[in-house]
């Protein structure tokens, strides 16, 4: 067996260029698989993180009507002040951070005269900073304080409206009682967070400001919760129990998974799509290996005939070719793993900037336009093993075909 292994590995040196080209094809497939998987994993996890950190929290408490219709941010199905206070106490009792928020649609305009639609959230800056991470992403000016009369806008809004820090923006909206209201608000801070939904659509003012001007009277459309360890379920169960015990039966809870079900469905579909892509990469790799092995086998028919004549069993001939293919897969997989690790290091530290391609495009992920990578040692190992296994599997058929030829024909084969 040892000599068969030696022969198989020496056979790889017969046509060095061919071996290198095939190995590069395998390496390319493996590296691409590792890199793509790492990037998709990052995009998936980053989307989940960004959804929780900037958009939703772990779960919200809101009225049932609001939960059904959240995308419209209705002001007529909100939680009234006494219930808000009770829910805040529940949050305290369950060890969660909570932030009452009131979202409403507004038309924002600046000097140029045209307006752009945004969702404005009225927040308690202090509480909100414990649930969301907008505060950590201020790039100009300051985060809101409790008595601030200004507005916190996104870098995207700044660019779209051509407005800057210290300038005034006109907010046109409706009060709780459906009367039109226009406010002139000073831009006191600009944030740039990694969640494009928040960046492109959301602005923030204080609850005090909203209560004074929009007749919100201490109400909140939702109360966002953040659990300390990031796990929803135990806290959610406690909150549900306490809501029931406090007879807050008109209120309900919605988790980030329920809210993001559309996104999660898209994410699953994308995973399926990437599997197809991975499969196609391996088809290309497999064709390369089959081609190389078939060429190797058919140029060595006479040699095989000689070895079989001298008493080498057909199974040993097949083994020799399979080990050779495994060697080819091993070289390709080692190269691919190395390349994949290098690409991942680059992806983790620098990332790929798709800003020019994805500028204003909504591609489903709640990430910025710079795509990073995440380490996935499991996939790296799987890709490495799969590279070798794939090489072995596709070499079995041509090897078996080769020993079907009669020895006398093999020896005469030209």
């Amino acid at each position, binding site marked *: 067996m040892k000599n068969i292994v030696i022969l198989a590995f020496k056979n790889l040196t017969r046509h060095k260029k061919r071996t290198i080209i095939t190995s590069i094809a395998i390496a390319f497939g493996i590296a691409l698989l590792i890199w793509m998987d790492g990037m998709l994993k990052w995009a998936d996890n980053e989307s989940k993180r960004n959804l929780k950190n900037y958009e939703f929290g772990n779960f919200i408490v809101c009225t049932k009507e609001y939960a059904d219709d959240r995308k419209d941010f209705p002001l007529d199905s909100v939680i009234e002040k006494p219930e808000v206070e009770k829910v805040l106490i529940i949050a305290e009792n369950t060890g969660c951070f909570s932030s009452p928020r009131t979202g409403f649609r507004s038309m924002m305009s600046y000097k140029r005269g045209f307006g752009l639609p945004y969702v404005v959230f009225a927040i308690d800056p202090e509480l909100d900073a414990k649930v969301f991470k907008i505060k950590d992403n201020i790039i100009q000016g300051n985060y809101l304080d409790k008595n601030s009369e200004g507005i916190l806008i996104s870098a995207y809004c700044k660019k779209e409206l051509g407005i800057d820090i210290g300038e005034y923006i006109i907010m046109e909206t409706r009060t709780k009682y459906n009367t039109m209201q226009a406010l002139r608000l000073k831009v006191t801070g600009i944030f740039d967070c990694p969640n494009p939904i928040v960046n492109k659509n959301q602005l923030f003012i204080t609850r005090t400001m909203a209560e004074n001007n929009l007749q919100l009277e201490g109400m909140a459309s939702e109360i966002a919760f953040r659990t300390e360890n990031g796990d929803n379920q135990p806290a959610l169960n406690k909150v549900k129990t306490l809501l029931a015990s406090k007879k807050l039966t008109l209120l309900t809870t919605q988790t980030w998974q329920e809210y993001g079900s559309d996104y999660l469905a898209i994410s699953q579909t994308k995973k399926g799509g990437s599997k197809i892509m991975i499969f196609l990469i391996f088809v290309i790799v497999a064709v390369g290996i089959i081609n190389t092995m078939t060429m190797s086998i058919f140029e060595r028919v006479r040699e095989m005939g000689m070895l*079989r004549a001298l008493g080498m069993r*057909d199974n040993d001939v097949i083994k020799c070719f399979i080990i050779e293919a495994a060697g080819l897969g091993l070289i390709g997989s080692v190269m691919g793993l190395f390349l994949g690790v290098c690409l991942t290091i680059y992806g983790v530290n620098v990332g790929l900037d798709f800003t020019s391609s994805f500028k204003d495009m909504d591609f489903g992920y709640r990430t910025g336009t710079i795509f990073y990578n995440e380490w996935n040692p499991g996939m790296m190992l799987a890709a490495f093993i799969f590279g070798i296994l794939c090489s072995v599997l596709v070499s079995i058929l041509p090897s078996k075909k080769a020993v079907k030829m009669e020895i006398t024909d093999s020896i005469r084969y030209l």
Partner: protein
Amino acid sequence: MPIVECNNVSKEYKVGASVVSALKDISLSFEKGEFSAIVGPSGSGKSTLLNLIGCLDKVTEGNLKINGILIKEQNKTLLADLRCENIGFVFQTFNLIPVLSAFENVNFVLSLKKNLPENECAEKSMKILEEVGLKGLENRKPSELSGGQQQRVAIARALVKEPALILADEPTANLDSKTGEDIMALMKDLNMKKQTTFIFSTHDKMVMDYATRIINLRDGMITSDNGGKKS
């Protein structure tokens, strides 16, 4: 007991719709230590007979025994093992493995024999290479050897398993006359020393001169067999 025993052996090939009879009712045997040549014009059936004796092909009719073993009853694996233990081949075109050195070419074939320790294989391989005059050249690849040297490696490869029988299909056809003669002298010497049975197919008069027994074939039939007695 003869090493090779052919009894009324016939071999037919199908070529398209027609059947070609390559050997017709051949009966002959070879004893241990014979140095025989099968001669005849192209198409006379020399290679077919060697292939049958070498267990590379099966008879259509009749019986063939190698070392007393009836060949047509053996399956592929048993035939491979039988060839491994009993038969060595020397080919016209040497058929060495180009990525292996002279030593490795010989050692690889010997390692096909089961239950032989690695160091014993290496020792035997070196010894046989020395015997065929390739001492000092054992690490050279076939491409670094002359035609004669390559054929010596092929002979060493055939002999290293110490088979009862060596079959050589036109072993000098690809060599110049001087080298061809050297090779024949070497094989004759080994035949004398080791009492290994050699059977050649050849057109070469010089090879025939070395052979002690000459079997003439024509149209698949034996036309003459001197039985080892040269005139």
